[in-house]
């Protein structure tokens, strides 16, 4: 059980990191960016490919993976969101355009085989791969009856530090004030002289880089990198996390991530592996029915 709780914290950190990017975009644009799970996958896939196929060191590979994720943030804004904003399209249209982009990204990685058009990106097709042993030093400690691997343990301080930095930026800096102003009222922000389009671009770049980082850490710690890790592991769970914490709330997403990790592990231990999958969604459903603003949500414009 103790080991399970430790595992819950590892996986909770990844959920939290993923969901922070998700909730940042929702908080500022009121749009669910459904390409976020594809960015998560792409970060892991590019980093793996740089290490294994292009022979780069892990640090360089990580930077390339993060750059690729951030670049997809730019693509999301310029291709999926900005044209729709210009046309004053209903919010639901952005769901479809981001789904379309997610489809393209996943299909591109999926079709990356030796000799194919995308072989520079990925060569393992739909298979699941892991970083070769020794890519990063991974000492393992035994504390009592707990097994602690360095890659898993490191995730926790990295996630917490990043989320603290993001929280600081949002609360105390000029850029953060600008972002919050856009979230509050884009038209008023524009009248105050803010470049709203640039703020939104910045939001998507930050959000996608965080999503990509979550993917890299996931691939490193769990040894499972495939075109489907985003869809299978974080797409819907990410929604659950931001609802548990309160849509648009960054501290909420962090707490929600750890809470979901804990709920899943407790369900796994008490109900067995079959029933545990449904528990997270039952929790999500109950949370929305009983307290739709989430644990930390403050504003709730969607409700009468």
């Amino acid at each position, binding site marked *: 059980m103790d080991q399970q709780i430790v595992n819950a914290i590892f996986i909770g950190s990844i959920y939290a990191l993923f969901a922070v990017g998700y909730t940042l975009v929702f908080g500022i644009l009121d749009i*669910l960016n459904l390409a976020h799970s594809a960015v998560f996958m792409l970060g892991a896939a590019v980093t793996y490919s740089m290490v294994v196929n292009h022979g780069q060191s892990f640090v360089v590979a990580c930077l390339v993976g993060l750059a690729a994720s951030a670049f997809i943030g730019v693509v999301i804004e310029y291709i999926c969101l900005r044209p729709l904003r210009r046309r004053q399209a*209903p919010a639901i249209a952005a*769901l*479809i355009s981001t*789904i*379309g982009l997610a489809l393209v990204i996943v299909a591109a990685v999926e079709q990356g085989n030796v000799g194919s058009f995308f072989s520079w990106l990925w060569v393992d097709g739909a298979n699941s791969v892991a970083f070769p042993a020794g890519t990063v030093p991974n000492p393992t400690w035994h504390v009592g009856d707990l097994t602690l691997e360095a890659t898993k343990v490191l995730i926790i301080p990295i996630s917490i530090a990043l989320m603290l930095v993001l929280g600081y930026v949002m609360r105390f800096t000029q850029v953060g004030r600008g972002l919050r102003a856009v979230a509050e009222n884009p038209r008023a922000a524009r009248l105050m002289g803010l470049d709203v389009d640039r703020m939104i671009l910045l939001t998507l770049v930050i959000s996608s880089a965080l999503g990509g980082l979550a993917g890299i850490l996931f691939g490193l710690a769990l040894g499972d990198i495939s075109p489907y890790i985003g869809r299978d592991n974080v797409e819907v769970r990410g929604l659950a996390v931001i609802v548990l914490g309160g849509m648009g709330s960054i501290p909420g997403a962090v707490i929600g991530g750890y809470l979901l990790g804990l709920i899943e592990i407790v369900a796994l231990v008490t109900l067995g592996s079959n029933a545990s999958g*449904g528990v997270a969604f039952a929790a999500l459903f109950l949370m*929305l029915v009983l307290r739709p603003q989430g644990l930390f949500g403050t504003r709730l414009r969607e409700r009468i």
Partner: protein
Amino acid sequence: MDFFISLFSDPVGFWNSHTLLISQIGINGIVATSMFLVLYSGQLSLAAPGFMAIGAYTSVLMDLNWHTPFVLNVVAAVLLAGVVGVLVGLPVLRLRGVFLAIATIGFIEALRLGVILNLPITGEGLGLKNPNADPLGGVPIILVSLVVVLFVVWRLTRGRLGSAWSAIRQDEIAALSQGIFVARYKMIAFVLSALLAAYAGALEAHLNFFVDPGDTQYGVTRAVQILTFAVLGGSGYVLGPLVGALIVTLLPYIFEGAGDYINIIAGAFLIAVIIFRPQGIVGRGGLAIIRPAWWPRARLSAPSPG
């Protein structure tokens, strides 16, 4: 392209060789119409795959265990979905926008992962064998059902009910202030959509020898696909979601030449359609083309004389 050429050059042969595809289009059309009902009343509900699962499992299980006639199975499945629709609708219809969408995702995944995958009677993760399926005989029922469903829903949207739904979609608070019983009309749309989805689910289960509890069948992936039917086709008109279902179901045939890269082309196509037709393919207005800032502008006025 062979696919579309054969549609015109040899319609009978086309019909015979693509019966299953035509059935699937019909079923997707019915589900898309179920999605239309909720979207038309301003509710972003993604519950359809859950009700399809209820329809499919109820009708197949009745057939397997009690050997009841098909019609009775379908009626029972649809009624059960209606009851579940009311029970789910009561708490969740207070939510709006993406909150409703996420709550309904919670419902379908809790149903699929929590209930269907754990009950011995539903075959757990292995799915359910359905030896009495009839893959080819269902086409006439499905196509007739589709036409009837479209006609009934079209009549509904033209009447009192449709006006109320329209008003709620455009502005819920204004509708409330006009004396429209918002909660009741939303519930009617939600339950009707549940009935249609369960009906489509029961018909679909009747086509396959195997009921598969996978994500692409009754999970989020299916929900997103159904939403794509409705939004791509246009959710302002009854025929829109049907057109969306037709196009999305036929995408692999439309872009036959793309081979393995079909999903890349399909994704790019989705983005392009939604950018140039944000209201959907069926709807008012032309292509939404916006001139980029660097595009040379036409001169607005003639140079003034003197």
